[in-house]
């Protein structure tokens, strides 16, 4: 019979796919991070600094309204409309939530202790606070739920292990870390589909996220040639190279446009 043939065929197909897929899962399990030989540490007497601003070039970006009606608890925590933070323009024409970091090659040979202080990511008003965070590899990320509603927190990395954990109201903080470098790891809440954050994970402490002034400062760098990368959620990445001498401070400004990025 036609139907039966169809069904049997598909059942077999499903099972084959399933077996293939579960194998894929195993293969995709990330290996533990490679053991790094103890490298030298930075001499603070000659350490250099790179600072600058991240500018937006095109007036007012269009803001996306967030509709929270699916969860009354979320609605109650806001007065007035809530807008997406994917493009957060400061009053001075700079951008907030831009992840700025130093690309690793120039730092080969150095090793950096894992910070003991955790990075805090809060779920508040059904939004992630702050909207973008950075962490060093293996640094603890402490996730809070300040909302009287249920969230689930679900990073979708390429290089690290994916997981999905629920956080009911008053849940204990969830402490996790990512062992491998990855810029950026998207993190979402599947209960509230507008909730999205990004975590930039690098193997050294030379990273930062721009705030309300749109500025950044990366200090404690050994003198040398560096590539500085600025990542913006909507506009992608911009790179610039810079050379810093001993104890030198250099200024590097970035600018983004809606079409992508300039310089």
């Amino acid at each position, binding site marked *: *019979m*036609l*139907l*039966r043939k*169809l*069904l049997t065929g*598909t*059942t077999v*197909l*499903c099972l084959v*796919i*399933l077996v*293939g*897929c*579960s194998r*894929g*899962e195993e293969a995709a399990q990330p290996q533990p991070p490679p053991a790094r030989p103890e490298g030298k540490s930075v001499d603070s007497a000659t350490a250099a600094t790179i600072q600058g601003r991240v500018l937006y070039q095109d007036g007012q970006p*269009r803001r*996306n309204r*967030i*509709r929270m009606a*699916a*969860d*009354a*608890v*979320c609605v109650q925590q806001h007065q007035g409309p809530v807008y*997406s933070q*994917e493009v957060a323009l400061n009053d001075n024409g700079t951008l907030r939530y831009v992840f700025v970091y130093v690309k690793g090659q120039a730092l080969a040979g150095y090793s950096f202790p894992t910070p003991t202080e955790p990075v805090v990511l809060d779920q508040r008003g059904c939004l992630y606070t702050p909207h973008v965070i950075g962490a060093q590899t293996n640094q603890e990320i402490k996730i809070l739920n300040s909302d009287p*509603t*249920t969230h*689930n927190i*679900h990073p979708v990395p390429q290089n690290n292990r*994916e*997981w*999905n*954990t*629920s956080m*009911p109201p008053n849940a204990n903080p969830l402490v996790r870390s990512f062992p491998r470098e990855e810029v950026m790891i998207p993190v979402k809440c*599947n*209960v*509230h*589909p*507008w909730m*999205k954050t990004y975590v930039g994970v690098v193997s050294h402490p030379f990273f930062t996220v721009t705030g309300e002034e749109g500025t950044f400062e990366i200090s404690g760098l050994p003198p040398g040639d560096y590539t500085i990368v600025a990542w913006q959620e909507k506009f992608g990445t911009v790179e610039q190279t810079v050379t810093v001498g001993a104890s030198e401070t250099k200024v590097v400004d970035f600018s983004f446009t809606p079409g992508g990025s300039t310089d």
Partner: protein
Amino acid sequence: MAELPGGQESVSARHNAGLHRFALLTAGATFLLLIAGALVTSNDAGLAVPDWPLSYGTWMPPMVGNIVYEHGHRLVATSVGLLTIALAVWLGLREPRRWVRRLGLLALAAVALQGILGGLTVLYLLPRPVSIAHASLAQLFFCLTVSLAVFTGPGWIRQTPRVTDEGTPWLGRLCELTTVALFIQLVLGAAFRHQAIGVGPHLLGALAATVLIVWTSRRARAPHLPGEMRRPALLLLLLLVAQLLLGTGAYLARLAAVDSSQPTPSFVFFTAAHLAVGALLLATSAVLTLRCHRRLLRAAEFPSVSSAIQRATP
């Protein structure tokens, strides 16, 4: 023709109105389940409940945000599972045709497998092949419940003279081809929806399905064929028009939602409706195929008989 469903055994089959109504109920509930499943994907709610088979460690989590869709889908699925168990048991007790009883068991196995696939999508964080298999098996299971409703129906059991189809290919074959094409088209749609492929194959599939449906429908609406074929043939055409419009709507809504921070209501409506009408197309085509096998003779094989019957049929 003896190997065809109901060919000879139906003599002993008596129409059981209660059983038929129950099969219809199961098929109707399965259609609602398909819509509930479609809403999960459209709302990106597949992982709103991280655990399985329990939801947040209980049977009834707080129904907020996307948990409504994911847990709602689980509740409807549980009901359909229970209905399928009851249907298989009822068939086992009251159905004289062995192949129909077996089909009931097959439906039960399919719904169990479907539940496991659904659980695996949650536990393995939505691996594409599992999501696509879950979406595809859903369509097959729906066809299975619809066929059980057909086989237990009075129209199937009633003894009526057969009609001949003289066309090439034989209409029964053509319907089979259309049904298979529609199923492939639904799998392509699922693969596109779960981002395993681009929209291209699904568009080509739409072209092929449209040609086949128009052809099949024209053949099956021939005046000498009985209403039980002409009606689904007409329905196929109507559904096709609706489906092409919904598909276009779904695509436009997808484009419009690219910049949005969350699935838009129009995206959810068009994608879920497109999936639901796709399921109705497949089921209608499957019903037409089954009725062809039940009521149609091949002209080439029975030249004398067929012409005799044709003369005898109004």
